């Protein structure tokens, strides 16, 4: 239920289940918006505001760590 005009980019909310993260950095390197960074061997959400909910990090995380939801939905 978004009030924004359709042309405006979607906003996403991304989380990392740290306990299962093995630090492969796949999510970090393939995120087109550089939302995620590696910190002490784990993926961390560093720039949450940039997330467009494209879901690429979730699709490619081999360890079921990432969830992405569309803000306002």
């Amino acid at each position, binding site marked *: 239920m978004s009030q924004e005009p359709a042309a405006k980019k979607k906003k996403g909310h991304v989380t990392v289940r740290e*306990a*299962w993260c*093995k*630090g*492969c*950095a*796949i999510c970090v*390197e*393939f995120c087109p918006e550089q939302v995620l960074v590696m910190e002490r061997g784990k993926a961390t959400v560093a720039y949450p505001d940039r997330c467009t909910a494209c879901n690429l990090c*979730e*699709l*490619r*995380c*081999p*360890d*079921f760590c990432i*969830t*992405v*939801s569309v803000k306002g939905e």
Partner: protein
Amino acid sequence: MFNYDQYLRLDKFPLIWCSGCGDGIVLKSLLRAVHKLGLQKDQICMVSGIGCSSRLPGYVDFNTLHTTHGRALTFATGIKMARPELTVLVITGDGDATAIGGNHYIHAARRNIDLTVLLFNNHIYGMTGGQVSPTTAKGKKASTAPYGSFENTFNISGLAQAAGASFVARSGVYNPVQLENYIVKAIQKKGFSLVEIMSPCPTAYGRRNREGTPVDMIAWQKENSVPVAKAGQLTPEELEGKLITGILVDIERSECRAEYQKLIDRLAQS
């Protein structure tokens, strides 16, 4: 947000696979495909052989069977013959299916029995110690080929096609959505359906062959994939070392269990 947890045995997590192993990406594509088809968990029987990818059934809440090296297709054949109403999924690897189980592989395809085979091709025996497999490319190193392999390789998809499979597709973990779509089509197809999946092994293969990080290995797929339609316009030299992806076979051909049913019905009448 897709809910994977509904299909998982969460008490078995985290996954045993190495950091950056592609197999977890395939597992996720598979679960989305199962959901898309609306399959019930009890409707599925998943059978695996031995190897890293063959650990997969341990993580899913379906009927599951972890069998012996190279024999997943034989167990799966028995299940399909006895319980044709089940959706039978076979999880196997390049070594398991095409070396140790090579004969079962071609004969299951020849019979065109209604199984869906997800074949994880990582070009090596990962779990058993990095030995050369039938898909280890010439020049690539393995624990049993310390100076590089000098053998020719199998084209796994081509083998299934030649033997009579009614559906064959090739994809890789770089493209999890394409993979999901191919798995959907493979399950829908009545007959032997193969999805050959390029799933990098950064540990036993990548490290030894200096192929870089898991990210590098996945990026390689992006840069070197050629869709099958485009591959037809390229010369063999241009295709050298490339990964041809897409649906390679999708044909109608008589299916083994259905033929068997005809025989049962005929004998019942006589």
